[in-house]
């Protein structure tokens, strides 16, 4: 692959210089003098970037993925579709009940039965996806952006800046996150948006801690020092080297956080701090169904299982991201 100009002469030399018993010292000596500087560099394995288009590589990778990962992506895709186009999955309304059809058991007409006001359980689940998902996205975004910013500042500047940030983070981490979210909601007021922000702020500390440790690791690496050594300015080196190399595990944690954000938002909804009724938010569904658990167990169980499935799916994808950005 890599050949310098005199490789041909090397080949000729070793080919012709057959050592005869009494002249071996010359045979040894002569090729050696030529060999040293002209050895071709061993060929590198073919670059992966050239093995196919981006799309084709994705397909190849998907084909190798284990079935559990497939399932995880499937669950998230379905829930995402619910959020984007709920009307395509059900013809019932999520908020308007049908009189005389209260608390029906699951049937062909109402797949997941109806609640105390005669609203279709399945429709409420489908229409609720957008509230839970957008809330979780917002929560993760708040945590990711603020946390990464604080972590990068702490890890790259060091000194008293790091001390101040990281001790604050320690304090935040010592408060149970639900309690923290509740306190923030009490300041901000009730509502889906505020619940999401509250959950996000509660996760800033763990994002900041992870990011800082990654930044500190990358900052100590030779290539960052080499970048400074070749005249790089602080900001440029941070942007070109430190940030991209620190973010892999932070992204994996964001996927994990997505699952727990859904859980936290549902918890807040369940406790009545989130979306007000009649919003079909998942936590609220569980809370409302709880009153009828002895007569209509499916009202609270099915939304609960959906939350479990989404959280597990997010965890599974996060694990795959940690392992090899699958």
């Amino acid at each position, binding site marked *: *692959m*890599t050949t*310098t*100009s*005199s490789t041909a002469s090397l080949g000729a030399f*070793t080919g012709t210089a057959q*050592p005869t018993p009494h002249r*071996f*010292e*010359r045979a*040894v*000596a*002569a*090729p*050696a*003098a*030529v*060999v*040293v*500087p*002209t*050895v071709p*560099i*061993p060929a*590198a*394995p*073919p*670059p*992966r*970037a*050239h093995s196919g288009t981006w799309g084709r590589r994705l397909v190849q990778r998907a084909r*190798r993925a284990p079935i559990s990962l497939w399932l995880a992506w499937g669950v998230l895709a379905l829930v995402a579709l619910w959020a984007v186009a709920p009307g395509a999955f059900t013809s019932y309304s999520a908020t308007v009940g049908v009189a005389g059809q209260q608390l029906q058991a699951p049937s062909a007409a109402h797949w997941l039965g109806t609640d105390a006001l005669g609203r279709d359980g399945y429709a409420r689940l489908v229409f609720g996806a957008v509230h839970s998902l957008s809330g979780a996205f917002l929560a993760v975004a708040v945590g990711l952006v603020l946390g990464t910013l604080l972590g990068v500042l702490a890890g790259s500047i060091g000194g008293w800046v790091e001390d101040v940030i990281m001790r604050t983070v320690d304090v935040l981490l010592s408060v149970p996150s639900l309690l923290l979210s509740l306190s923030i909601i009490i300041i901000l007021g009730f509502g889906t948006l505020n619940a999401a922000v509250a959950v996000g702020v509660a996760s800033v500390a763990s994002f900041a801690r992870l990011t800082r440790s990654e930044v500190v690791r990358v900052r100590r*690496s*030779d*290539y960052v*020092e*080499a*970048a*400074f*050594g*070749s*005249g*790089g*300015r602080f900001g*440029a080196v941070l942007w*070109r*080297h430190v940030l*991209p*190399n620190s973010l892999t595990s932070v992204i994996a944690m964001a996927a994990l956080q997505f699952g727990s954000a859904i859980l936290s938002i549902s918890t807040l909804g369940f406790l009545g701090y989130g979306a007000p009724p009649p919003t079909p938010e998942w936590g609220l569904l569980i809370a409302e169904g709880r009153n009828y658990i002895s007569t209509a167990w499916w009202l609270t169980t099915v939304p609960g299982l959906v939350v479990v499935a989404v959280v597990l799916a997010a965890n599974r994808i996060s694990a795959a991201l940690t392992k090899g950005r699958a």
Partner: protein
Amino acid sequence: MTTIAQAVAPPPVLEVENLSITYRDKDHEQRVVHGVSFAIAPGEVVALVGESGSGKTTTAQALIGLLADNGRVEHGAIRLNGTDVAGWSPDRFDSVRGRVVSLIPQDPTSSLNPVRTVGEQVGEILKIHRYGDRQAIARRVVDLLAKVGLSQPELRARQYPHELSGGMKQRVLIAIAIALQPALIIADEPTSALDVTVQRRILDLIDELRSEFGTAVLLVTHDLGVAADRANRLVVLQGGRIQEQGDTASVLRNPHSAYTRKLLADAPSRSQGAFRPARAAAANDTPERPEDFAIVVDGLVHDFDVAGRKEPFRAVDGVSFRVRRGTTHAIVGESGSGKTTTIRDVVGFRQPTAGRIVIEGTDLTTLRGEALRQFRRTVQLVYQNPFSSLDPRQTIFQIIEEPLLNFEPLPAAERARRVHDILARVGLPPAVLERRPRALSGGQRQRVAIARALVLQPRVLVLDEAVSALDVTVQAQILALLETLQRDLGLTYLFISHDLAVVRQIADTVSVLQAGRQVDAGRVEDVFLRPGSDYTRELIAAIPGKKNHHHDPIDTHTTHLRQAPGVFQQAA
């Protein structure tokens, strides 16, 4: 003599016959060892020599049943004392491991359990194989530690690994390996992580123990110098195939395969007596003018504060040297000698406590902030490890281009042109520009690192053990490249190394550091032939690969022949 010995000798301790090993990688299998056969007689030292990727470690792992989970012995036989163990399960191997065959691992720092005392770890193998009751084991542990040459063995047995130096840890691992007096010891690069003087003592120890117990030793090494010194027979591996095997002396004198010849030519420790030819600029008789020197270091002192102690630790203590423009100065010393601290001061990463560093007429110690950043174009550093000094997320083009972005803006086309130019200079094809570092070999990466350092057209290049992490063949290529670049671009090199053999090949002048002090300095030839300190003498004596030279006039002769045109003058 060997043939007679073999004819009457007892059956071999180890017989490997047509051994093939494959690794399973996701959905396909790759064979890495192809039909390897060799044997080791009792009390014999056989060296398995090859570059990284030659399959030598895989072979050694198979012999002791420690192949990685995805590795598999495809076919062939491994007979230990006549019993074929090739297909054995790991559990079954437990009975022979330690008792019949044992291993001295490569890296002493990571091979001991940090939370258990040395005595417990040596005693563990005795306990597993039911050596005796607790007192008997404790007594045997102290005996063993004394046997491997550790002072105060009772104290050592109670110490934890972090209280021991690297050489002492390797001795502990040897004590574990010989605890049950196995018939065969596999030493996998036992000294690669150690300083040269420690390396010599450890190899001497293995040799003594071998002659005392009659244990056979399989020495796995990439260092032909070590193999030549220590082994009775050599097995040369390349790409999982045996290229050559036979008596050490006859292989060295009359290598049959082209690959062995190349290894011999590339091993710096085997080129005896040849110094770098003096150049006009370096000749000592021209009068000294201050403007002749690219680097002047004067009375350099560097202290580090130690937590909990009033007295700072003095890492560098009054080091002074000057380097003429266009020549190479080497700094030699073992780990902890202050050589890394010295060059980090020279490159401007740290401010020294005292002393003056003048590079190309600029006093570095007065520079701060933006002035220091601008100065970085003058002096560039190449790191020891090309695997950690390149950002894994950048393409090669981005890596080489980056320094250009840090200074006055250049149009993209101009930057691309300079990157292509420098890439051609370091002997890499343009195809690598699109790749990322992981798709390149170690030698190619080091070329990229050199290209990145040179793209700013510096006057001084500081090389921190820049070839130590590379195989001998690749090392020889990189050294040749450096030589060409120095000649073409008039560069001044500051070359840090623990390997005196390399220093002898490429440096004009040298400073020998010990514990932060400069114990010897001057022209390489003077320092090597008339060392001024005991420490330098010890360092020179510790260079491996001498044994077979002194008894072998023919070999010396060939070396001279090879050296006559000068290894580097051939680099085109």
